[in-house]
């Protein structure tokens, strides 16, 4: 099987992301240049726009919410369950589970990752690495949103003949939290929808769904 076929899911989403970023840049530039013309100025270039704080904050505010969504889904599904959902495990397995069930330490198989066999700090970190990295990406992109949003918001304030804010003041500002919450609510709705709809609905051939003939009450079954 060729490289493209083996990695088609990742490659497809990376291409979609690149296309969407270009689309966002072109649409944002057109919007910005409408305002430039209203000011009696020439249009700005694509390069100027994609290096501006307003483009950066629009990108970062969406990234942080996506990473938060996956961070929470990964960590909360350790303990919280939804009977009948392929996104959940069986209620009796709630929690971090035993070393035997997780195939770590002396229960590791020959083909298990080295850090799963290692135990100690390495084993502890590797056992939570997916959630930790998603959480770290969330913190980094949320911080980037706060810095880029601070710069963009201060530019808007000066345009309204108001004084600029310190970063601390911006962190407590309505703009910071409006941008944050409007992204969070949509991510939480999407996860809740996926968890619940996948109890009763099917997508033949997709591992995100239960097999078409699986009973509605079957949990932790992927097609």
């Amino acid at each position, binding site marked *: 099987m060729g490289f493209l076929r083996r990695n088609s899911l990742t490659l497809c989403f990376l291409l979609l992301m690149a296309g969407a970023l270009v689309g966002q840049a072109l649409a944002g530039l057109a919007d910005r240049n409408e305002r430039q013309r209203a000011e009696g*100025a020439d249009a700005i270039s694509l390069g100027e726009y994609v290096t501006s704080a307003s483009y950066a904050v629009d990108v970062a505010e969406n990234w942080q919410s996506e990473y938060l969504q996956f961070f929470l889904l990964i960590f909360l599904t350790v303990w919280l369950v939804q009977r009948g959902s392929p996104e959940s495990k069986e209620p009796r397995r709630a929690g971090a589970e035993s070393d035997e069930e997780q195939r770590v330490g002396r229960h590791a198989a020959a083909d298990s990752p080295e850090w799963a066999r290692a135990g100690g700090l390495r084993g502890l970190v590797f056992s939570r690495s997916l959630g930790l990295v998603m959480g770290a990406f969330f913190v980094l992109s949320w911080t980037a949103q706060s810095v880029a949003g601070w710069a963009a918001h201060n530019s808007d304030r000066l345009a309204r003949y108001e004084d600029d804010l310190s970063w601390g003041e911006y962190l407590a500002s309505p703009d910071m939290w409006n941008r944050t919450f409007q992204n969070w609510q949509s991510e939480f709705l999407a996860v809740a929808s996926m968890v619940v709809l996948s109890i009763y609905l099917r997508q033949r051939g997709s591992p995100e769904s239960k097999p078409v003939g699986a009973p509605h009450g079957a949990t932790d079954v992927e097609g």
Partner: protein
Amino acid sequence: MPDTARGHAVSALLTVAAVAAACSVRDAGAAEAATALFAAVQRGDGRAACAALSPKAVSSVETGGSRCPERILTLGLRGGPIHDVRVWGDRARLRAGEDTVFLVRLSGLGWKVAAAGCRPRPGRPYDCDVEA
């Protein structure tokens, strides 16, 4: 210090110096536009004063059929030493003596004064004699 580490340290210092220089050049452009406005008003050169304004600010000055070069000289703009320059993207705010000035960087035009003769109002935008 090994050569590689020294090289990195020099690169970092050069980067910091370049960023600082870029910021000061950027600030200087806004300060120059404000200085040009007040200097022109002081010597009674209304045409040069209006050239320092953004197109929208020029329109706002031209009220009731009066022309910008005449009207700008009647607004009592005094200015003073430039200090406390803040630049955020294509917007800037600076103090010129007791006066507060807001500027906009327009593509093809450079820094232009968007508002001048501004006084702070608690909890509200500045009140400006010239305002785009």
